[in-house]
């Protein structure tokens, strides 16, 4: 029985190792300064890069943070402070259920809200979809982190005469700062890896773009386009782009874990 279970573990490890190893080995071949700084060249030609896609992803994730962070962290603080009520329970349950909504459906909602009325694909719509996706996870994780702050801190602050709202804003939240930052970074890592909602909100763009009302290229959509295209050069670029994406997501997640390492050891 132990052997069977060990076999199960191996069955899970094999694809993981395969994916990681192949992305690194195939992707490393295409890494170059050009890859990060150049625009894509016309189909069939070699050379060029996906600088605009990398920038596009960073740009949309940043926009998504601007839109999603206040809401997500605010909802999380609400759940931590007043989550023991009926309303809090309902909101928490809704947040958990929302976390399971597939990204493509969120994309369609963003399309209906921000693309169809304006008849225009835009980076803003893509960022809105990403913000939608970040919201539930951020709210729940922020709640957990704020709840970890010891009650003695709150009581001490109140005893010293600080009103309840100032206690929350100036004492509790800054104490939970690392944990909230972790939650944010994990949300960012997830948003950076999303493809489906961007397919029909920000669409794609062969040029540099910094305007929120224009379509924008993104790393993930570029991988999809290149991987399913017929050109060998595109396939190689897809592997390299996947390597860049994994490095981005990995670095963000590692930073997030690093921030709460002490908290974990104590808990």
């Amino acid at each position, binding site marked *: 029985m132990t052997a*069977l*279970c*060990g076999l*199960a*573990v191996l*069955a*899970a490890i094999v*694809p993981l190792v395969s*994916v990681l190893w*192949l*992305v690194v080995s195939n992707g490393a071949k295409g890494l170059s300064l050009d890859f990060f700084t150049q625009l894509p060249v016309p189909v069939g030609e070699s050379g060029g890069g996906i600088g605009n896609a990398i920038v596009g992803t960073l740009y949309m994730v940043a926009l998504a943070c601007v839109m999603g962070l*206040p*809401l997500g962290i*605010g*909802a999380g*603080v*609400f759940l931590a402070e*007043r989550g023991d009520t009926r*309303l*809090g329970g309902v*909101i928490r349950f*809704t*947040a958990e*259920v*929302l976390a*399971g*909504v*597939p*990204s*493509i*459906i*969120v994309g*369609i*909602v963003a399309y*209906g*809200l921000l693309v169809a009325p304006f008849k225009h694909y835009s980076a803003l719509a893509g960022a809105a979809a990403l913000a*939608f996706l970040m*919201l539930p996870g951020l709210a729940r994780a922020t709640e957990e982190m704020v*709840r970890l702050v*010891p009650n003695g801190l709150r009581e001490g602050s*109140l005893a010293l005469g600080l*009103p*309840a*709202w*100032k206690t*929350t804003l100036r004492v509790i939240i800054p104490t939970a700062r690392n944990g909230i930052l972790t939650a944010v970074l994990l949300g960012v890592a997830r948003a*950076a*890896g999303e*493809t*489906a909602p961007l*397919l029909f909100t920000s669409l794609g763009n062969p040029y540099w773009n910094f305007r929120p009302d224009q379509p924008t290229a993104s790393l*993930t959509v570029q991988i*999809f386009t290149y*991987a399913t295209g017929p050109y060998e050069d595109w396939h190689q670029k*897809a592997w390299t782009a*996947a390597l860049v*994406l*994994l490095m981005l*997501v*990995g670095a963000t997640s590692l930073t997030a874990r690093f921030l709460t390492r002490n908290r974990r050891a104590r808990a």
Partner: protein
Amino acid sequence: MVRATDATMTSVAPRPPASRRLRVVNVGDRTFAGVLIALGALVLLVAGVILLVLVRLGAPALAKFGLGYVVGTDWDPVQESFGALPFIYGTLVTSAVALVVAIPVSLGMALFVTEMAPSRLRPLVSFALELLAGIPSVVYGLWGVFVLIPWLRETLEPSLGRALGFLPLFRGPPIGMGYLAGGLILAVMVLPTITSISIEVIRTVPLAQREAALALGATRWEMVRLSVLPYCRPGILGAVLLGLGRALGETMAVTMVIGNMPEIHASLFAAGYTLPAVIANEFAEATGALHTAALAELALLLFGVILILNILARLLVRAVRRGPSRVAA
């Protein structure tokens, strides 16, 4: 004074009862409370908005096709004749394959981590699970196109065809792409979900339960089978349902390996289509309002099913998490 509530296991820091919390008496507190409630209620608003937009986008198709949409098999944007059945079939088949493969592996891993592995290995396995969960879907798709499909085409599908070809499931030319490819990639992607929740659920089994079985002479496997697994059954079911929910909605990896054929075939080797895949492929280039509406109606269908599934799953997992306090009482 030790109170009964002190003994209950909670996953959050204990809060003072309402009577001891400071009452909201000044303007600052009330404004802040209002702001917080507004932000919290926004979550509910988001849920409502999602539902509303989907219904509004899909309304033309709902009006035109009614309930027959669900059983129609035609998907012809040119003739404006739409039917959802091939996609529902594809989604169900790939998810079924994913669960059939993932459940034994997940349970095996969960049992390995909680019961059998030396504690040195546990953080490693958790780390591996986190890695698996963190790889973006499109990267799995990329791997699927260039690694999984050739392997299926050259190795697995011919072998399955030779060994089990008498079953309609394994007949037909091994092209690599198709339901089996989609199902296998989904299995890899739902593995972390089912495993990590199962681990959490198995850990809630009280020590007394396990020790009782061992004291009565059970071997380790008998102990697991008789006192751990039955205790966890609703929780593991919840984990499986959550994994299923994830499998149903998974888009990119499946789109890249499923073959994109809106047809229904019995064989797992055949190419097919799933609900998220057709939306991903056709939405940006939908020809006409009816096409868009038809796709939006597919999304509504998917949303409804996943919503119900997720609610059920969360309720199950919660019931098990609260288990110990109820059992001890």
